């Protein structure tokens, strides 16, 4: 059994008014201190290469995406967010996706697609904001997923670094 020892109140504490004044002075001092709130849309959270944001397709320097529609990411995706329809192309890689959709409402930002991809075609960007007026608008197609390589370069380097470390320990 816990016995709570009540503190004997002093006269000033029992009168309450001095304590009220003490409290008021405290809040008055806090009144002038700087707010610690982050003003979100203007001051977004800092992101870096470790940030695992929404997956994006890398656009290579020649203007094409690296994806060969092998379907590895589609299989790896635990949320069944990725849908790929492959087709033939005249380019060297012979296959490219005719349709590549990620349902951002299903995506859980786990990064499995990034790990699964054999062609370094999909990477997790640092983009985190997701808003639209319709559900259909949040199913991103190729055009919406495309990002230039330069925008994702830091993440690409990071993933390579990570993988090299892992390999060296084998």
């Amino acid at each position, binding site marked *: 059994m816990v016995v709570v020892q009540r503190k004997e109140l002093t006269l000033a504490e029992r009168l309450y*008014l001095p304590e*009220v004044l003490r*409290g*008021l002075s*405290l*809040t*008055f001092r*806090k*009144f*002038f*201190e*700087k*707010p*610690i*709130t982050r*003003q979100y849309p203007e001051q977004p959270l800092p992101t870096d290469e470790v940030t695992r944001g929404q997956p994006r397709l890398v656009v290579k320097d020649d203007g094409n995406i690296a994806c060969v529609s092998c379907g590895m990411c589609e299989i790896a995706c635990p949320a069944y967010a990725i849908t790929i329809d492959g087709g033939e192309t005249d380019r060297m890689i012979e296959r490219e996706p005719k349709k590549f959709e990620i349902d951002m409402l299903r995506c859980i930002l786990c990064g499995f697609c990034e790990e699964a991809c054999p062609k370094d075609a999909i990477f997790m960007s640092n983009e985190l904001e997701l808003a639209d007026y319709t559900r259909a608008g949040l199913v991103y197609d190729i055009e919406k997923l495309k990002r230039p390589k330069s925008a994702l370069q830091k993440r690409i380097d990071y993933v390579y670094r990570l993988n090299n470390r892992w390999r060296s320990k084998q």
Partner: protein
Amino acid sequence: MEDFVKELPVWVLWVAKVAIIFGGLVATAALMSLAERKVSAWMQYRHGPNRVGPFGLLQPLADGIKFIFKEELIPAGANKFLFRLAPALAAIPAMMTIAVIPIGTIQIGETKIPFSIAQVDLGIMYMLALGGLSVYGAILGGWASNSKYSLLGGLRASAQMISYELTLILSILVVVALSGSLDLGAIVEAQRVNGLWNVFTPFGALAFVLFTIASFAETNRHPFDFAECEPELVGGFHTEYSAMRFALFFLGEYCAMTVMACLNTTLFFGGPSVPFWANAPWYVGILAFLIKAGFFLFLFIWVRWTLPRFRFDQLMRLGWKVALPIALANLLVVGAWVAFSTKGS
């Protein structure tokens, strides 16, 4: 300018004064809803509303538009007549009481115009009578909503307001005894003539503390806001209200606060008088009044974001067993002092 003012019909001045003072009151109430959120934010290391207009200054406008366009709900089984009447009863008496507050004197050339809607001999009686009515809004609104939370809120409001009205009146009577008049203008004048604000006299200081405590209870403000105690009663007496009717309750509360702040200024802090500057120009006087009243409005918010809510039995004990006896004794001593000192002179 002076001749022009002199030749104006009386009713023009009246209409102008009514428009300025009531408009000012409602604007103050609206700004208070912003100030409440801003001050609370600053005391908690936050920014507060800052999206609408510069520094969020247009927030009250946005709130008002929102209130107008929201759906008005009337709960099933509610008494429709009383349900509709209650918000008006909460807002109107609170707004009417500003009429007798002497905010100062406007001077154009040699013409002096008292800057208050009405100069009534029984100004304090008028204020107390109308102020006593503001409790009806809470009670009837709570009762007519046909909801247990509203009913409990209304019950608490009525018990609390009746209890603290006694302390309020008794502490006002101390000032009345010191000044010898029920006219608020005369009370201000007495303080100016004595060269001493009532708060700096021993009895006045005690009465001021009691009055301030009672005014917090009368306006249902923290730490005595039992009528709308959120953790227990959802929203208290206005749980079932929405849209503009809810806004009227809100407006009534802030108007009552503003009037209480003005009354506190008038009774204990010499109204528009400026310390150490007896011949201050009239606009300085009005500015002084606004600053003093503004401080008490700030105090309302300041206390709200500092103190936790009392328990209801603590409130009643404080009201009946502490505040009321002290107020009574204070009045008795003041009465004796005034009686004997005037007899001697």
